[in-house]
């Protein structure tokens, strides 16, 4: 059914009400689509039985009780680093291949409480370390826009969720975003991807990569759907001490936003080496589009942008080394057969359980955290991080301030798998994350919006960034841009 890749939540709910579709039949269509697109390898696990049960519950509420929930019958895919009770949560790693959590991540339980139906757990780079969804023990995920013999990557690390949404196997996907892991695959797969303000969405149950930067991310095919999902999951959580305590006010999308009041900044430092002509062209055309809508567009400067990648690299590796210290095979997860001594057991378990990327980050992180190195690297990185955050603060709150920033999301369209894997993971991240990870440094919200297709028929997207807690402005402006560009949906 072709409409699957373009159906919005509003349309689906209307179809439910008009009985053109029922939740259970809709779930079946989605599961079928997921099975049809198996070679894309978007899912690690398909939870069809669970989805069907959820759908039955939704039907009861809609048709019998007449008390429907906001996401009744809406299919979702959850990245496999979010804990789902009684469902394997692997982080695409041998270490947690058979790990079954006994609790739900807050994001997931809030979706369930809103009536959503879980289609499956989606593929990712092992422990979310990567920007291609190529480093998973379950194999890489292919981009649905180019999945043949010479296929292109889906982006990462939330590639599975992006592909699931793009192909219509589900309506929305949950990813995580530490350096761009939601926005990157959104851009390469032609869907919208939101990285919310740090502290707005609970991380309880999200197996962490970098605790001080991680945020649960949302992927959908249009802004209205994304906003609905966002409104259901955002808000304080006592189980996560880093969530903001302020009560959450749901975002309202105004269908006719007046852009003449908005000031958009174009940061000059985001013109970086390696950026493709296509991407530069899209950036320019969106700028023109906004100017046509009477938007005030200006060049601004974020002077510390170039150090962002190094800072991110150090802080990421340090937190990884710390967060991975718990994987010793004693309480859960992989346990090596070695039982000669506890030390041997730890070493073998951790060598077997982690891939190269994870292990190299642990080594680097341990090195940076040594007492004699702490000041030289970690502390310095923290100071530079503050400078990066201050850059954004000045641009949003200082003299000649702007409301939002417009930049590309990735440096190019989705690369060919063979080209992408010819470079080292570190270099891949360094180049692909250039435009996305400063937002994680500063904790500000950012969204990736697909604009048009490249000459290779691959999606090209741009990114909007806003100050802390500016999701309402961000999503409304994104909605306007979306309506102006009319990005085509994927033809299956």
């Amino acid at each position: 059914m072709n409409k699957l890749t373009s159906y919005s939540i509003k349309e689906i709910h209307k179809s439910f009400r008009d009985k053109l579709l029922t939740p259970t039949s809709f779930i079946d269509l989605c599961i079928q689509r997921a099975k049809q697109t198996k070679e894309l390898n978007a899912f690690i696990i398909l939870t069809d039985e669970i989805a069907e049960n959820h759908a039955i519950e939704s039907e009861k509420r809609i048709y019998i009780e007449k008390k429907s929930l906001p996401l009744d019958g809406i299919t979702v895919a959850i990245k496999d680093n979010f804990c789902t009770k009684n469902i394997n949560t692997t982080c695409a790693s041998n270490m947690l291949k058979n790990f079954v959590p006994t609790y739900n991540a807050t994001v997931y339980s809030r979706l369930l409480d809103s009536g959503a139906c879980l289609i499956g757990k989606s593929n990712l780079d092992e422990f979310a370390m990567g920007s291609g969804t190529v480093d998973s023990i379950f194999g890489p995920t292919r981009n649905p826009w180019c999945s043949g013999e010479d296929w292109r990557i889906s982006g990462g690390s939330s590639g599975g969720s992006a592909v699931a949404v793009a192909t219509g196997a589900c309506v929305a996907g949950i990813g995580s975003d530490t350096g761009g892991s939601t926005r990157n695959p959104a851009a390469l797969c032609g869907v919208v991807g939101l990285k919310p303000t740090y502290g707005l969405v609970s991380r309880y149950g999200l197996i962490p990569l970098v605790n001080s930067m991680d945020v649960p991310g949302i992927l959908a095919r249009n802004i209205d759907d994304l906003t609905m999902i966002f409104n259901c999951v955002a808000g304080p959580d006592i189980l996560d001490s880093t969530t903001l305590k302020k009560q959450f006010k749901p975002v309202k999308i105004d269908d006719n936003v007046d852009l003449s009041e908005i000031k958009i900044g174009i940061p000059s430092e985001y013109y970086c080496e390696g950026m493709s002509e296509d991407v530069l062209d899209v950036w320019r055309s969106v700028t023109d589009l906004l100017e046509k809508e009477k938007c005030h567009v200006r060049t601004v400067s974020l002077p510390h942008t170039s150090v962002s990648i190094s800072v991110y690299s150090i802080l990421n590796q340090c937190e990884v080394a710390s967060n991975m210290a718990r994987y010793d095979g004693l309480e859960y997860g992989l346990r090596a057969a070695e039982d000669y001594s506890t030390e041997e057991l730890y070493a073998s378990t951790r060598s077997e359980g982690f891939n190269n990327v994870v292990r190299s980050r642990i080594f680097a992180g341990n090195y940076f955290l040594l007492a004699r190195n702490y000041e030289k690297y970690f502390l310095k990185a923290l100071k530079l991080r503050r400078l990066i955050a201050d850059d954004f603060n000045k641009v949003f709150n200082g003299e000649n301030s702007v409301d939002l920033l417009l930049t590309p999301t990735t440096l190019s369209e989705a690369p060919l798998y063979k080209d992408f894997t010819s470079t080292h993971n570190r270099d891949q991240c360094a180049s692909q994350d250039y435009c996305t990870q400063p937002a994680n440094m500063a904790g500000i919200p950012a969204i990736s919006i697909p604009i048009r297709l490249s000459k290779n028929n691959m999606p090209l997207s741009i990114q909007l960034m806003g100050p802390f807690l500016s999701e309402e402005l961000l999503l409304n402006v994104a909605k306007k841009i979306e309506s102006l560009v009319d990005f085509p949906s994927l033809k299956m």
Partner: protein
Amino acid sequence: MKHYILSKRLLYKYSKILRRGFSSHCKKEWQSVVGLEVHAQLNTESKLFSGAENTFGGLVNNCVSLFDAAIPGTLPVLNGKCVELGILTALALSCKVNEVSTFDRKHYFYADLPAGYQITQQRSPLASDGIINFQVFTPGVHKKPYNKSSKIKQIQLEQDSGKSLHDAELKRSLVDLNRAGAPLIELVFEPDLEDGEEAAALVKELVLIVQRLGACTGRMEEGALRVDANVSMHHAGEPLSTRTEIKNIGSVRGVAGAIRHEIERQRSILEGGGRILNETRSWDATAKITVPMRDKEVVQDYRFMPEPNLPPLRVNLKTKEYSHDVISVPLIKDKMPELPEESRTKLIKNYELRPEIAVQLVNEPVLLDFFQTITLVKARNPTKVANLLLNDLLTVLNKRKLDATSCPLTVNQLEDLVDLLLDKKISLDVCRKTIDELLEGTGSSAMDIIKHKGWLLITDEAEIVKSCIKVIENNPKLVKQYKEGKTKVFKALLGILSKTTDNKLDMSIASEKLEELLKK
């Protein structure tokens, strides 16, 4: 001649050198320096960062939340009660409570540390710069008590680890995570103590204080309070040299013994020309020696890193406003109970008790409680009441291998006894016997027991005179000696009198009467 003078000069030089060498060897004495680190388990219902039950002796691995087992994706949530107790303890020890404190991760791999790191407050602790004042007095060691104090460098909140048991025979290790994540405060003292007795006295006072505050049970035998001692030797005026850390001390006396042994061990090494290794040693309480614990000379790098999942802890230092998320320090200060030192001073002042009595009473909170209730009746002499509790009651309890905390007697029973004793209706001996009977727990009152056993003191003068006459008649030799001037013999006669009357006479009356009769 010349030759002789030369030699003499040489001899003189040589002997001078010899003397110099000799005296420098004796003059420089090694002085011991001791600094303590105390870990106290906070007496809260749940753990520091999780809602699991914080208890001692629960069924193995039954008080473990997902967070305590380091299940992926779980996050710490700070228990406010722990912060309150930490602040209360800091205030009681005259520390400066820091307005902002932060949490750190201290990394090391061990089976009883599921996350591979402990959450602690190394860099910015809850409180700093305090002092503990205490008296040092060990009978047999010190002639009289003296005052001492030790400065507190910092007080920090941190997680306890689980427990691991190693079964060498079956070559396996067992891990119990009940204690993993339990709340601790670590008190870091400056190295300003000199020996084991001072350290033991400090610990004793600290235990009393935390018990008084309700912050910690102070039960060292349960591991609720753990003491690590840092010991080093140096010459006066010179900087401190290599120190060793002694762990695994399980009692207040152990503190004294372990440190005393370690000082001697280090002294003999240094005097023999050797050097001290910077190592961790364990106190073996049975063999009464310290043994090396971990790898020698391997310094652990804990790779400290700020805990990213916990925002900085802010407390309100200025106002008494109650807020769920920002604890008011002035409000806690208002709740401060009377501290042991204040109690001692009050006892000495209000009840005119001798200092040693005051110290002993404060050392036994149960007895202190009895004392304060019993002496509400002004007629009862405080010193005599104190003596009854500290000497008689405690002695009888100890004979039955009980201590004051497990004393089943009620304050009413003790009040009856006190009155009987002070009214001279019973002797001290009878008093002890009655306590013993009461401990049997038959439910009878003190009076019932005494009446039943016929233990009341005889005060009837006629009866007393009769007994006196009997003694005089039966001991003519002694009587003769007394009459001849040997007044010392009177004591012997009194002794015989009390023995033959089974201690049932009021001895003050009996003594009077005997003297009268002897004069005749």
